[in-house]
């Protein structure tokens, strides 16, 4: 399936759908425990990461904590 991840095309070979958690593993997203996932404009609640399915054509944003400032 073809996805748009943080504005760039991404493909996952041999899969039609994946749970958010499986996708995080497949894409080797860093710090999967702390990433916020937005799927097609909606924030995915963390407890539903195993049940929320990502499909071909979806748009995702992975948002990270940034705690600096001084």
């Amino acid at each position, binding site marked *: 399936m073809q996805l748009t991840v*943080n*504005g760039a095309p991404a493909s996952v070979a041999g899969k039609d759908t994946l749970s958010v958690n499986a996708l995080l593993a497949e894409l080797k997203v860093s*710090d999967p*425990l*702390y990433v*916020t996932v*937005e799927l097609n*404009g*909606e*924030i995915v*609640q*963390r407890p539903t990461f195993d049940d929320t399915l990502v499909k071909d054509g979806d748009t995702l*944003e992975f*948002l990270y*904590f*940034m*705690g*600096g*400032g*001084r």
Partner: protein
Amino acid sequence: MFSEEQIERYSRHIILKEVGGKGQRKLLDGKVLIIGAGGLGAPIALYLAAAGVGTIGLADADVVDITNLQRQVIHFTPDIGKPKVISAAEKMRAINPDVTVNTYQTWVSAANIASLIADYDFIIDGTDNFAAKFLINDACVLGNKPYSHGGILRFDGQTITIKPKESACYRCIFPNPPPKDAIPTCSQAGVIGVLPGVLGTIQATEAVKYLLGKGDLLTDRLLTYNALRMKFREVSLKRNTGCPVCGDTPTITELRDEVDALNVCDLEKS
């Protein structure tokens, strides 16, 4: 209404149709609180003072350290050892004697933040830890104060403006702080010195626009910046109905300190 000197000082503002004399008066009547007088706070404080924002509050308990000088451009080498709020206030008053600078040499906490923000129109988060960032969000949402969030690390930065109960807040994106030490701080991971200049200047722009009532604020959009690739991106957001502070069934109804999010160095300092 304006002195001769003020007409000259603010002439480049006054000729802008979006500002004019009326807008400059709004800036002079405006009150902005900057929490953190470091990397982000430095350009914010300098530009807001230069712009003639009439009352600027600065909150920070820290003193100037030599490691700050690579990016905190409001502090100079002879200021090492001086409280940051004093060092910053001296520069702001030197830039513009029109400005009243209120200094608060303290860390923000659940006990003091509500009274700190109460007198200000707009709040700016220039802090360097999640305990403060979440506390500022909660205090501004519960106290209905618009504010600008900013975060930086290494070569990356992000910022968003929050209008409580109208636009997505920080907890809509990140419901809870990460555990202590899960995410590195600038002192642990480094930060390129020009980065807070870029992000802080954007935050100051939001404060100026808010006071003027002109343009579009950075609400419901997280602006991310990567200095290495020189890329800006905008991620559209909306309010999260499950947000613990501004959602449909909030679980946070009073201020509390996120003690678990404090880094060891913060605990030692406070």
